[in-house]
């Protein structure tokens, strides 16, 4: 099968991978780049565990063509922390018990980051809306919503630039 080169920014670093025609972004990130933070849960855009940011917007990488991100910027949960310092969302998820098995967490974090980057002081309803496409089967959504609200109220001063 012939391969197509795709070049994009991955968590701030330029990367290039070869993909099969029709390959999705999730496969390109997990197998091409080697970043296994985004997960496979359904491959059909229904669970949100593969959520990544493309130029700051949340997208489901399992139903995004890899070739569509050529020249663009992709962020995953692997790039959230700043060196050894956790992002406020990561700290809040830890403090509020917002993960059990952890499989939905990378997607949840990216959906929440997309929200807070645009809207640093969201209402509870806005948080619910933002993670509405992300399924969690273990934790229950309350701790997750509380964690996102706590990260937001930690204030822009704690947000990474």
């Amino acid at each position, binding site marked *: *099968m012939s391969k197509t080169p795709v070049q994009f920014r991955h968590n701030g670093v330029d990367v290039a991978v070869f993909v*099969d025609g029709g390959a999705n972004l999730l496969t390109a990130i997990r197998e091409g780049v*080697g970043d*296994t*933070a*985004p*997960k*496979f*849960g*359904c*491959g*059909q855009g*229904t*669970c949100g*565990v593969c959520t990544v940011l493309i130029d700051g917007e949340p997208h489901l990488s399992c139903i995004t063509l890899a070739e569509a991100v050529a020249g663009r910027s992709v962020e*995953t*949960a*692997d790039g*959230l*922390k700043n060196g050894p310092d*956790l992002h406020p*969302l*990561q700290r809040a*998820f*830890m403090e509020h018990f917002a*993960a*059990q*098995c*952890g*499989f*939905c*967490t*990378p997607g949840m*974090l990216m959906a929440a980051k997309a929200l807070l980057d645009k809207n640093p002081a969201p209402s509870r309803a806005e948080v619910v809306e933002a993670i509405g496409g992300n*399924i*969690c*089967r*273990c934790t229950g959504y309350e701790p997750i919503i509380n964690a996102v609200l706590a990260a937001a109220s930690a204030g822009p001063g704690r947000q990474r630039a």
Partner: protein
Amino acid sequence: MLEFRKEYFADERDENLNEIGKPTQRQDMVGHVTGTTTYFDDHKLAGLLHLKVLRSPHHHARIRGIDTGAAERAPGVRRVIRGADVPRNLNTLLSLLNFGKDDEPTLAVDKVRYKGEPVVAVVAHSEREAFEALAQIRVDYEPLPAVFDVEEALKAGAPVVNETYPKNSFEYHGRYDHQKLRFGDVERAFAEADHGLEERYQMSPIEHAPTETNGCVAAPETNGRYVVYTCAQGLFFSLDTCAKILDVPSNKLHFVGGTVGGGFGGKVDSLTEPLAILGAMLTGRPVRYVLGREEEMQFGSPRGAERIYVKDAVMRDGRITARKVTSYFDSGAYTRLSSYAVIKCAAHIPGPYTIPNVHADVYCVYTNRVPATAMRGFGVTAVDFAIECQMDKLAHLVGIDPMEFRILNAYRDGDMKAHRREAKNTALIECVQVAAEKAKWPIREEFRRMSSRAGGGGARAAVPHTPGTPAGGARPPAPQRTTYDRPPQPAQAPIFEPQKPSPSPPSPRQPTPAPATTQHGAARFSSVFGTRRR
């Protein structure tokens, strides 16, 4: 917020706890929030191949023939696996405890018994090539009548789902088609009761729907073993299951796991491990077998549905004097763990209440549905739903507050339970008291003052006269220790080529001791050894 009600049973504890009651960060949390927790599918293996299975489109059909010729020649295909390639193509999960007969093939050979049953596996370079090859396999099916209802399945003349159990019910103690519980004389109690109430409860099958689907990656190691990265919930249970099916000593397998992307009971069946390891044995390469979302939802085993009939006798003063339960557990086409759930169910009846006359018949029934498995309290959850619905209705019937009605009938320390174990460490009364308080539900002072530690035992500790059983009530035999017997091994097991399988599936192994004792599940699975106070 967690709240400790230390005033309860305060004299039974030392107050020298170092961890309990203090928040502690989980050690796996940093991995979860940084996306670095390593699930089975996050391992990188060079030369990885992908395994996919062809599933039955029929609920019940005879297999007349399978043509895999075109699939074998399809691009990217490394190996096509059929039932005859599986060294011991018949297993039952609890055979590791000598409980039940081998009844489920890894790949169907003569018959398919549920829609979605695996028939052929293909190992290919990519998932896509595996799917394309599967599409070229031709299976000649002769559809058979199917049965989906537990009571229909038990009627004479119903289609036989699983020939290992021709009556469509699991065999208990080597001869009974159901698990019995007999305590006291329910018929007499019904005759003497002020009121009776009989209801039917029907549960649905429930899919666990873990966010991570079932799967594993198996690879040859450099030391002649096979490493298996898996989401199995029972890692060593799965290891031994695979060792049996693949007919290799268990020290040939190296399981790595414990990190599960949501399980809830749906990852104890070894759905993918045996075929992935066999694929690695037959190709000498790492093999990945992961269920797609549709496979997980449709064919991953669910919580089994149960149909429960409950008939109760109650006196005007609120005392329940008899409870009779007939329950049917829908096991689907194979046993897996349902036989055990039935024993748990029977041991749990009549719930956390002291009722002097109890009678239960619980059936593990085979139907042409997807086989059921464990899920969060299975065997107990459904019957508790039925019992608690029944408690509300009974309270209403006699005009007593439902909270007080539960306290009135609650078991207490020292009471004899229907399965003939003394009730210890009971705390239902205290739970109801706190629940009522939290819900601002008024209960009368005398009920607020009752205690699980007072009023039990005495006459309530006796096993009542039970028609049909020896006087004084039979005690269960002591739990049996059993071992899983392995067949004799050849001196040297080949490393990448499993032994040539015999053309027909090996016959189920007979447990060496008499079935009547080795199959005594009630004793084996009893988990009531905890002592708080004695």
